[in-house]
């Protein structure tokens, strides 16, 4: 049983999402700005209503941005930069024994990527070292004791081949 992350496809997907979200944000920002300018221009001396409308839409937009960027955009952007740096980054290939995987995600090194921890034992000659590496997808479908050759990038499994 093998596992292979399609980096090029994932990179394209992430890039598409980042571009779309950036465009959507720019578009909404421009619309809000235009609306505010129009509300200012077309207000008369009794401008209370225009002012209240301008304040409400601007605050809603600002709050949306404050909520959206750290909570959603950041995740997608981190994935995008992870895939983008993959080509030039250092990869590591090693023989490991699969111990267990955890199906609750964590964020590794606080870098914003949602990852699933995988407990493995590195087999390097006579020494055996237990380590936690990560996968971007749930359920790799390996069993405890499976011998694997894994290729990792920033301790994230890109490719895993079973020796069976």
């Amino acid at each position, binding site marked *: 049983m093998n596992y292979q992350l399609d980096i090029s496809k994932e990179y394209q997907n992430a890039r598409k999402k980042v571009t779309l979200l950036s465009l959507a944000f720019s578009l909404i920002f421009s619309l809000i700005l235009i609306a505010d300018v129009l509300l*200012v221009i077309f207000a008369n001396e009794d401008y209370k209503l225009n002012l209240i409308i301008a304040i409400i839409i601007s605050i809603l937009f600002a709050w949306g941005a404050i909520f959206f960027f750290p909570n959603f955009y950041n995740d997608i952007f981190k994935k995008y930069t992870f895939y983008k740096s993959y080509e030039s980054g250092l990869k590591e290939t090693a023989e490991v024994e699969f111990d267990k995987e955890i199906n609750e995600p964590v964020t590794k090194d606080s870098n914003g990527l949602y990852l699933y921890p995988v407990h493995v034992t590195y087999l390097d000659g006579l020494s055996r070292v237990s380590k936690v590496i990560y996968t971007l997808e749930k359920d790799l479908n390996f069993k405890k004791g499976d011998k694997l050759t894994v290729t990792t990038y920033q301790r994230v499994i890109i490719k895993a081949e079973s020796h069976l």
Partner: protein
Amino acid sequence: MNELRKDRLSNHIRYVWPAYIISALLIAGGLSFIFQAVHKLPEYKTLTIFVSGKVTDGKALKEDLLNTYQDKELKSVSTISADPNEGHYNTKLTIPGYSSADVLIIPVSKLENLDASYFAIDLKDELITNFYSGYSFYKQDEVNYGIKINKETVKPYMSLPNEDCYMFLNGNSHNIGEYANKPVKEHDLALHLVKEWGM
């Protein structure tokens, strides 16, 4: 929604809430400033009255004046009040009184130590003939500066000291028509107000 995302969202609310408050305040303040700057009322549409005494019903005063001078495009009325017996009276009379009031109502006892020519226009014969014929005036060095106020007329709006009070037209006002430092004949709201309140 998984636990991690729930944790992150609750952390976000816990630590980032000041950003929501600050952004709302900045936006509200900024937009108010912009609206105010762009749509500032022209000075000839606002009337500011300095009252030596107490304004008892500012709301009624504002409403009545806005109704009376609707055809003259009056949009805003504001008052500055100062008790002549309090220590800060002279300071208030100078700032903001002299600097921003169109009409200043001052009791005669306070006028003894003031140079009326410093803050009021002299009421030339032409102005008296056109507006204030038969009224009582406050004179200084044989020049007419103030018009005596009819306390009964302003009684619903303000309480004035128990002595004669006079109204003065500030030369810096934009509401005294051709008699202003920057004269515009049509903008004469203050002249009409003093005519209505004077005696």
